């Protein structure tokens, strides 16, 4: 299976062939990998270069490579094509999600409001700090999913915004 991979700003095509043979951008790579901790950490030797790669978080995928943190993604070709289609269909729609679990203290807008970029939409209290969640762009508030006083999980949908000109 061929994967479209991003590591930081870099884009690569990676193919894992039979017998663990790696092809990167259609060239064969002399790589030897050892899975040190299942699903979490690999030791990779490329020629004589020794690298340690750790999966810090899965979603988004963040890797620690020899002490440097990078964002990465790997999509097989079918998933990559599907993702391109989906983002086109979604247009300028933003789902405001809770970046962490906490208590929704205040809602600063009403449905139908048009807000400027960086306008506060909601205030979420987590770890005793109040965090204002801001509009990612000038947009219209399409839907408010939860109200003040609600305890929300990390990733919970809070509001739907639609970019407006």
């Amino acid at each position, binding site marked *: 299976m061929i994967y479209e991979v991003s590591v930081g700003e870099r884009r690569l095509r990676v193919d894992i062939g039979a017998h663990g043979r790696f092809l*990167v951008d259609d060239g064969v790579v002399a790589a030897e990998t050892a899975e040190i901790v299942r699903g979490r950490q690999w030791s990779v030797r490329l020629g004589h*270069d020794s690298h340690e790669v750790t999966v810090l*978080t899965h979603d988004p995928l963040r890797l620690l490579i020899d002490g440097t943190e990078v964002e990465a993604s790997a999509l097989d070709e079918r998933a990559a094509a599907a993702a391109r289609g989906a983002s086109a269909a979604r247009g300028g729609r933003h789902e405001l999600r809770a970046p962490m679990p906490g208590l929704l203290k205040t809602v600063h807008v009403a449905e139908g409001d048009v807000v400027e970029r960086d306008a506060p939409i909601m205030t979420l209290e987590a770890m005793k700090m109040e965090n204002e969640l801001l509009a990612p762009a000038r947009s219209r508030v399409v839907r408010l999913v939860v109200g003040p006083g609600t305890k929300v999980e990390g990733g919970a*949908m809070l509001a739907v915004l639609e970019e407006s000109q």
Partner: protein
Amino acid sequence: MRVIRACHELGIRAVAVFSDADRDALHVRLADEAYPIGPAAPRESYLAIGRLVALARRAKCDAVHPGYGFLSENADFADAVREAGIVFVGPPADVQRRLGEKTQARRLARDAGVPVADGTLAPLRDLDTARREAKRIGYPVMLKAVAGGGGKGMRAVASAAELDAAWRLSSGEAAGAFGSAALFVEKLIAHARHVEMQILADSRGGIVWLGERDCSIQRRNQKLIEESPGPSVDAALRERLGDAALRIARAAGYVNAGTVEFLVDERGAFSFLEVNTRLQVEHPVTELVTGLDLVALQLHIAAGEPLPFAQSDVRRRGASIELRVTAEDARRGFMPATGRIALLREPAGPGVRVDSALFEGLTVTSDYDPLLMKVIAHGADRTEALARARRAVRETIVAGLPTSVAFHAHVLGEPDFVAGRYDTGYVATHWPPRAPVEVDDSAVTAAALVAVLATRGRAARRPVASPDGAWSRVGREEALR
């Protein structure tokens, strides 16, 4: 943890308390005795004075060390402990009250002849008074909690237009964190450094200063990196800060370990900020430079012993720097993060100390402060300390949730920081980095291979594998636990 370690070195049995959320915590396992204190919510456990004191009595404790969070600066707690016939490891309650009320502390410093930033010397009555005072002082100003600390309830206000919102957020935070919504306002000093002086005082009049820590690297007015000596502090300024700290401490009748915080402007002029009447999170920086054990000294002082040395005996050797690894996503504006520690490697080796509560399998929740681990490096000079810190951060692995480690890795190699050119505005102007991190081709290839291996491995373990929304994704992850 830190206190348990000092106790064990002195042959003292350590008694710990824990909330329901901390049953598995490391401090529970290292202590000689451990007692449940209530549910996760601090108000019903770590802040429940009555319960804590009753428990200390039942466990026949000789002394209570309040640590550096929760009730560590709470005079009512100190009173309750002493009334129960137990020694409180910290300053007397009246000293805590005098210095804990920030406007009163400002008056005390001014009367002791220490420079104080222009601002109100009494709590603000209402938003109208705040508007008037801020206008008199001139924007930008800092809005602060009278009972404040730890950056909570504190906000920079650039103009009158921002004051209403800042007032609302700050008084809300202050009420939640300290039980008092009272605020005061002071002039914001641009390009200032946050420099603090560690002091120790015994109950017989002996008092010393141990040197400064520069704590200017902050986000949301909370510290991320501290170092000593301060890059901007020369011997003359150090003497003046030490002298000012002792004048304030003497005026307050201070006993035990404390920290006097100052702002130092671009020209080296300083003004008093506040006194922290407790051990500070960043105390290891001073411990490494002076070779002293501050917690052990706190216990000796609390036992009524005199300081075992005089000011002239205090030796400072080399340089030290502390990095606070927090459960915050450095790449997303230091948003608090939660998760399970999936893989952990704490750094070690020459000149590196780690104070950590982490272990693999620990679930980090949003119940408490996001501090996970402190990495403290020491070297013969600042260059060596930074090299060791850099090396230590490179070895550090905290996997399973977003952390501040990437921030530390960046700052330790960033030219302004390396040159010691920074102030409290540093994080805002230097983070996130403008240029993407540089990784050589070989490392990029290795990372790409692992990205595929990890993604493929995860997909294979999943019952369903369609690319869809977060709701079903969360459901699946829960099913996998």
